[in-house]
């Protein structure tokens, strides 16, 4: 018995030493500290996208600030999305159908990398729409 005990203690210590490392704590998402403006004219039934770089893991907010049709403010709903550039388009992962407003309509947390904001006319618009989107990201 005495000869076994030391071996068991040592082997237990060794087993602890080569066990899997503990799981790293989930990082806290960084706040969006940078802001980019994506503005343009959306064709009837068309889409447009804008690429931006997230520099660290954190929160991305998209706000469709305004939409004007025939020089008048419009409450027509469009699809606003976040995705990744792929081919000649933006491959979306998070979407929201929304009218223009002052609070972010699409939000999410993302790892560092290149992403895109995409706006699609689903109504369709009666004529081309002039839009303004704010992209806030870390």
């Amino acid at each position, binding site marked *: 018995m005495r000869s076994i005990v030391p*071996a068991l203690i040592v082997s237990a210590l*060794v087993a602890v030493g080569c066990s899997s490392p503990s799981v790293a704590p989930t990082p806290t998402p960084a706040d969006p500290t940078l802001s980019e403006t994506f503005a343009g004219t959306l064709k009837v039934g068309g889409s447009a996208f804008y690429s931006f770089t997230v520099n660290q893991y954190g929160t991305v907010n998209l706000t469709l600030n305004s939409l004007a049709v025939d020089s008048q403010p419009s409450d027509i709903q469009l699809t606003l999305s976040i995705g990744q550039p792929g*081919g000649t388009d933006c491959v979306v992962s998070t979407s929201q159908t929304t009218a223009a407003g002052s609070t972010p309509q699409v939000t999410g947390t993302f*790892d*560092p*990398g*290149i992403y895109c904001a995409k706006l699609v006319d689903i109504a369709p618009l009666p004529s081309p729409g002039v839009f303004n989107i704010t992209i806030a990201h870390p």
Partner: protein
Amino acid sequence: MRTLLALVAAAALNASCQNTPTAPTNTAPSRASQYFSGVLNPGESAFYSFTVAATADTDVTLISLLPDQAASPALAIPMSLGIGTPAGTDCRTTSTATSPPGLSPQVTAPTTATISSSAASIYCARIADIGGLTGPVAFIVKIVHP
């Protein structure tokens, strides 16, 4: 003697949980081909985004440029070609060349894959008219990337 037995047992256990080292290999990463085609008007540019899966060079080749009409002869007009990253509504190029269509890559640039984020491994190939186009052309660009 008891201590010796304990040490032998511990050594055996310790050896059993160590990773066996493997010799590094120098195998080049496999590369995939993608074709970017479209129609370009005078003064316009276009780009195509792709994701690299490993760190290695990416080649871009303008392989065909034809008037946007059937049965027309191929064009040898120099075009601007580039490799970069998507930014805003365009592709921000870091390596560029001006060349007519050909069979060999006109632009080659190192591209890096980031394992922790596929979004960090996105690049783009760009084609632009530099003033030589007099009408719409159909182009085909071959992108070979890891």
